């Protein structure tokens, strides 16, 4: 072996390590599930208010959010068994885990304590979602995914000015357009690649 071969080997190792670290095998199911869950929650609250069916609407979320967390944790455990845990995969999990915990705390503890007004929750969630999408897009080097963050941030700005129950409808639409649809795109891509790699 000479210096040239050694250099080639080092470059070869570096290339494989970089590619493996960047690999993310993700089905997008969490995006779809959470998107539909929050869509249902927002729409249900909007309908309850409109039909004058009054009760403490936090109970809608007390039911829905634990279902979402349960599903995410189950999915994570299943994914861990099925697919390798890569560097970028861990970053994405951490970003969404942290964003999820943050949103849950703002939604429950924030409103319970009275520090966060119910009208502020949706815009705050949009802004956090924007951050999570931006970080994920950069980590997976996906422009379209990163650009979704701008949709969330713009949505957040709009919601900061809409202090009425229409805000619930806007948030429900944002969830469908910028959470469920991207989730479906990821899921279709995952299905194709996973079937091909089998």
């Amino acid at each position: 072996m000479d210096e040239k071969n050694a250099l080639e080997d080092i470059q070869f190792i570096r290339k494989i390590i970089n590619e493996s670290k960047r690999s993310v095998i993700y089905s997008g199911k969490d995006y779809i599930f959470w998107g539909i869950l929050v869509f249902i929650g927002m729409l249900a609250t909007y309908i309850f208010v409109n039909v004058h069916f009054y009760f403490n609407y936090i109970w809608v979320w007390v039911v829905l959010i634990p279902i979402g967390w349960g599903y995410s944790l189950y999915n994570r455990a299943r994914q861990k068994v099925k697919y390798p845990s890569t560097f970028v995969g861990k970053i994405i999990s951490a970003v969404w885990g942290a964003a999820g915990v943050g949103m849950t705390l703002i939604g429950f503890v924030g409103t319970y304590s009275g520090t966060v007004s119910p009208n502020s929750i949706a815009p705050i969630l949009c802004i956090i979602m924007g951050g999570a999408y931006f970080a994920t897009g950069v980590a997976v080097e996906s422009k379209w995914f990163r650009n979704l963050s701008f949709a969330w941030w713009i949505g957040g700005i709009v919601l900061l000015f809409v202090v009425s129950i229409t805000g619930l409808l806007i948030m429900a639409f944002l969830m469908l357009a910028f959470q469920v649809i991207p989730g479906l795109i990821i899921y279709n891509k995952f299905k194709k690649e996973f079937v091909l790699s089998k």
Partner: protein
Amino acid sequence: MNDFDYQQLDEIIHSRIRLAIMSVLISTDEADFNFIKEKINATDGNLSVHLKKLEDAEYLSVKKEFLDKKPHSIYKLTKKGKTAFEKYIEQLEKLIKK
């Protein structure tokens, strides 16, 4: 002064495919057969042979289980494997600095 000696190169790792397998596993906690196959572009048969060689050298451990009623093998570098890989890289660096 350079203390590179080509005889010190680990023969188990000193093969492109095994080097590739070790590189994939060093960058992930653990990986299954399909993931490694996809990353290094190897055939099933070829990959199995080289995985077995690394397993025999105790450079990697394998956990076999059933997933969706199909056999599923998960590979992970052992401490011995990580040390051997690091030593191999050190040897390459010494050669480049020569």
